[in-house]
């Protein structure tokens, strides 16, 4: 029950952090390429790798891992917006940007989660 409440609270924080970072990136560097969501998904993937690594090698309690990993990182990063932005870029004739956004999100996202895990388990 405590874990469930913790996950909910961490998810609320994650959502607000995603919103603020996305708004800030749009404010600093406006443009068609969804830099905000890109940055959110990559940094969140790195953070999740980090947290799982801390759990695996440094004895981070399971409950903390669930709250930060599933709650914060899970809510901070988003799939629905990612997919929506890919389709909207394509619809607006920005096929190149759409492909670049999709491919770079996947490749850098996978690299980021691996790097996060590697940093804590070296």
């Amino acid at each position, binding site marked *: 029950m405590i874990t*469930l409440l913790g*996950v*909910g*609270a*961490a*998810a*609320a*924080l*994650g*959502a*607000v952090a*995603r*919103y*603020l970072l*996305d*708004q800030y990136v*749009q*404010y600093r560097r*406006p443009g*068609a390429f*969804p830099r*905000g*969501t890109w940055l959110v*998904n990559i940094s*969140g*993937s790195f*953070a*999740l*790798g980090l947290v*799982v690594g801390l759990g695996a090698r440094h004895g981070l309690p399971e409950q903390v891992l*669930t709250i930060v*990993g*599933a*709650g914060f*990182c*899970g*809510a*901070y*990063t*988003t*799939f*629905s*917006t*990612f*997919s*929506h*932005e*890919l*389709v*909207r870029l394509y619809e*607006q004739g920005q096929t190149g940007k759409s492909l670049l956004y*999709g491919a770079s*999100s*996947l490749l850098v*996202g*996978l690299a*980021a*989660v*691996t790097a996060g*895990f590697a940093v804590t388990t070296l």
Partner: protein
Amino acid sequence: MAVDRDADVSLTTAREPFRSRVHGRLLAAVALGGLLGGTARYGLALAFPTPAGTFPLTTFAVNVSGAFLLALLLVYLVEVRRRSGSVRPFAAVGFLGSYTTYSTWMFDTERLLGGGHCTLAVLNVLGSLLAGLAATALGLAVGRRVPAVAGDVRSRFRNRFRRIP
């Protein structure tokens, strides 16, 4: 969200300080939606756990259903209603943003790769991506059809009403 920016969120220009863009009411809506969306995803993960070394079907279903719902909601808010108030921050950014997840998708894929389940890893990346895109396209298409159908029903109703002398 770079693509469809909300009028009530992004009317300010880049010259204004960033803090003028941040409204407590919107943050509260995002936080409440995020709390509910994250809890819903975690609840589903508890109810339908996927063992290590198998296809992460729960996350897949959550992400694909969330992609469909987001497209449906945004097409309605942006193209039909043309303004959203607190609905977009609460339901789109908060709830559906937190309900779906990218980090777990990446992490599960990395785990499958590390465990030597290369086929499942590729299936997880490409399967979620393609199903997500299809779900988004379907959501947009359904969302654009609904007002047309509703308008049609309304005009038929009006026409019938007019025929009464």
